[in-house]
């Protein structure tokens, strides 16, 4: 294999990893927000995210026959998923975490896992009653087409992408745009608004913030609402990208996104994004290591195939935790969220 075929291949793999990384990043933000404020790992977040994916599926399904702009359908799906996942997350906090807030740290952790299992089966029953298990997204026409394949106005861009061998679908581009937009809005919300200031205050010291007149329960609810809404967005993006979800699909991406949050430094918003992107790229690169092994003629590299994709992510995590325990961008105890 020569460099001329290998280079576009590699570019493609890395670009694919970045797209995947944006999905992880948005899920990871949900973990990081809640951890930043409560030092609680909301393991139910993976189901909040699947709920978003299910809501997105239902919206696309109901709007299938409706003559409407595809992007408008997407906006409706995103808004519906944000609302329902956000409210669900608030409800979870109210029922499962708030009563245990003063309990030892292990207790809410176990409740979180319990909530996660309950939600899985609730989702399964809701879809099962309608005779569905694997939910297949019916995307608006054109979303699965190649990016810049037909429209002449983007011909230069299309030619450039094809030139460097990037093989993107329209939905990948939409995914990245939506992820970047959500990220921008979140950043504005947390760093530039009164609400964000209050949330940051509660994150730093709940008791003192209370003495300053901040209703910490309300701020915690707000955090869960924002985190849940991000979960909803990521659910729709996940469904769009991979095509199918079922009630149990949250576990794998949930664990990887959680890893991404820890890798970036849990509690840090840019850290979650960096962690997600890093894991996405690493995962895709490990997935093709055997091809690279063939190129350099190494038997050992050739044996590392796609089955090691996941393990690679965790090896990176362990290395980071050994050499920089706070994660890539984590600072110990300064400015959480």
């Amino acid at each position, binding site marked *: 294999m020569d460099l001329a*075929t290998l280079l576009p*291949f590699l570019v493609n793999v890395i670009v694919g990893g970045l*797209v995947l990384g944006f999905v992880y990043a948005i899920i990871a933000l949900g973990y990081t927000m809640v951890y930043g404020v409560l030092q609680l790992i909301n393991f139910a977040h993976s189901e909040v995210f699947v709920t978003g994916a299910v809501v997105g599926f239902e919206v696309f399904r109901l709007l299938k026959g409706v003559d409407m702009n595809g992007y408008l359908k997407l906006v409706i799906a995103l808004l519906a998923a944000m609302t329902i996942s956000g409210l669900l997350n608030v409800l979870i906090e109210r029922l499962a975490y708030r009563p245990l807030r003063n309990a030892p740290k292990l207790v809410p952790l176990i409740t979180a896992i319990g909530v996660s299992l309950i939600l899985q089966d609730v989702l399964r029953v809701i879809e099962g009653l309608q005779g569905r*298990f*694997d939910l297949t997204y019916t995307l608006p026409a054109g979303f699965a087409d190649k990016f810049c394949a037909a429209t002449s106005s983007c011909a230069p861009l299309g030619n450039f992408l094809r030139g460097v061998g990037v093989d993107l679908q329209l939905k990948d581009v939409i995914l990245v745009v939506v992820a970047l937009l959500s990220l921008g809005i979140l950043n504005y919300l947390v760093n530039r608004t009164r609400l964000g200031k209050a949330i940051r205050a509660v994150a730093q010291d709940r008791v003192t913030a209370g003495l300053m007149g901040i209703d910490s329960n309300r701020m915690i609810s707000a955090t869960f609402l924002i985190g849940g809404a991000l979960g909803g967005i990521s659910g729709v993006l996940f469904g769009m990208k991979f*095509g199918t979800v079922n009630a149990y699909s949250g576990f794998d991406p949930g664990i990887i996104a959680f890893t991404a949050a820890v890798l970036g430094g849990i509690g840090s918003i840019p850290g979650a994004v960096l962690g997600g992107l890093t894991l996405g790229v690493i995962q895709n690169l490990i*997935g093709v290591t055997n091809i690279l092994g063939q190129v350099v003629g190494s038997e050992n590299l050739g044996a590392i195939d796609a*089955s090691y*994709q996941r393990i690679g992510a965790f090896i990176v995590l362990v290395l980071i935790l050994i050499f920089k325990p706070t994660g890539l961008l984590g600072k110990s105890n300064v400015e959480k969220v």
Partner: protein
Amino acid sequence: MKKTALSLTVLAALALGSASAQTTIKIASLSPLSGGQSDLGTQIRNGTQLAVNEYKAQFKKLGFDLVLVPYDDQADPATGTAAARKIAADRQILAVVGTLNSGVAIPASAALQPSKVAMVSPANTANGVTDRGLSNMNRIVARDDSQGPAGANFISGNLKAKKVYILNDKTAYGEGLAKEVEKALKAKAVTVSANEGTEEKSDFSSIIAKIKLQKPDAIYFGGIYNQVGVFIKQLRESGVATPVVGGDGLDSGELPVIVGAANANNIYFTTVAAPIDALPAAKVFAASYKKTFNDDAQGFGAFGYDAAKVVLQGVLNAVRGNSNKLPSRAQVESAIRKGSFTGLLSGNVAFNSVGDRKAGTLYVMNVTDGKFKLSTSLPVKAPKP
């Protein structure tokens, strides 16, 4: 005090005894009823239920109350083994229909073996299921070492492929099948560019990138529909139309749903469970399945029904051999292994010394526009007498 407790127990036992004058015989089913493979597992449970309903009257005449107890293994070896221990502890259970996954059957049958509970599998194809020679483990479907070569023959003979990319799901089932296919393809001098394992359920982008780079003539995937379906969907969306071949794990009506009817083309799979319309005797079965469960019967439903019939005829033979009294588990076990069973949807069944079906049939199905069509069928024989 002690006396009262004892007499109370006796009284309770008497009351129970008179309430059910008939002895209960239980048959267990063990298959995934929840989780990603529940579509197939539920078919097995339902097929078993239909057979039990059918035989209830015959058992009643002999003074037995026949009951089905379904167990859920979630397609998980640990859960399946735990369920097998529960089954072994329930003395009223005489035999088990199950499992769906070879990876579950292997530890579960080992857990059942000391208490001599016979298992008849409607679906396990891994060689290791019967190669261990357990006295209690039987199957009515063909083995991987016949399914693998059949798939390989199809790839080289019918699809005329010169270069094949093999994937597997890293389970006893998928890996075993992929290995058999690889062996048979290499024997035919077909290039195998990879035999790659993946447990990924949603993101296949790096594998698809490799496939695009290597441009194989055919792809073989030893795996289950819920994983393979997502793979095919993403493969077709990224513009690769290469035929995808698989084993009986693809045999589910959910497959075209996951792939999407528009993309569900050029897919082939070998299956041990015949399509219902390829079994001449299955019309009545399909109708009563639809009536009872309000769902369409699929291959594994029919094979669950057949496996249950083998179990029930075996129990009946054991009852008769024991002068119409309740037989022991050991008697049922040997009645099943040594019996020959008729009136099944998939033809007659007799087992060889290790529990493989002496003669069976494999079917190759073709998926076009989301519809299943029978492509061809081949007879297979057990490797041991």
